[in-house]
């Protein structure tokens, strides 16, 4: 059975890094233990590091070590042309590179806390063909696969 491949949006990555409990952290534990595959894009890494550098810079080195230990697969960002051609996928254009990177990586699930643009708009999942949910939803989906 192929390992579940979960794309972590930066909101899920940060939530998992700043708390030892909760579904987002459990996903990262499963990544380190190699029970699942965790995928992010270059954009997710950059915006996560920049946010931490801005709000709590003393944690930047630990966040980088955390990313390494969780064994994240880091995929390239889509090109400008690809993003332009896929603007229809999601309402907020800023999210297109994230969604497109996940689609190109052929992940099974996108875990995010972004309610406004991802979770509350069923068209995004429909258009992309990828299941989208909170880290808790992703964990429930993995649980189903494992049982």
């Amino acid at each position, binding site marked *: 059975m192929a390992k579940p491949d979960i794309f972590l949006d*930066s*909101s899920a990555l*940060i*939530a*998992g*890094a*700043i*708390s*030892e*409990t909760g*579904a987002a*952290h*459990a996903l*990262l*534990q*499963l*990544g*380190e*233990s190699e*029970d699942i595959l965790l995928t992010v894009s270059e*954009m997710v890494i*950059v*915006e*996560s590091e*920049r*946010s*931490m550098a*801005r*709000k*709590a810079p*003393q*944690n930047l080195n*630990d*966040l980088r*070590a*955390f990313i390494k*230990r*969780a064994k994240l697969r880091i995929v390239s*960002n889509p090109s*400008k042309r690809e*993003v*332009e051609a896929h603007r229809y996928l999601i309402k907020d*254009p*800023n*999210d297109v*590179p*994230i969604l497109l990177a996940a689609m190109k990586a052929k992940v099974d699930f996108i875990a995010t*806390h972004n309610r406004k643009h991802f979770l509350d708009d069923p068209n995004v999942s429909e258009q992309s063909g990828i299941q989208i949910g909170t880290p*808790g939803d992703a*964990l*429930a989906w*993995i*649980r189903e696969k*494992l*049982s």
Partner: protein
Amino acid sequence: MTTVQMRGKGTITFPAKLRSKYKLQEGEVFTIIDLGGGSFLLKPKVLEVDVLSRRIARRIKEENISLDELLQALDDERKTYYQENYIKK
């Protein structure tokens, strides 16, 4: 299927067959991964992500920074990154 029973103070005896199969010794440290819905995964090692996030969580708490603040910062950074990489020439 192997079943175990929880005893006083949450003690569970690890079945001898599995201890022998995986060469698990007394004092072995496990990480319990909470999969939600009452399911757990038991790993015979300390995970580095736990050590690191414990440290990050402590500092974040000391600085009084909330997850919402960090999520807002992420939102701002996403806009900036998009501008830098997908709008500007």
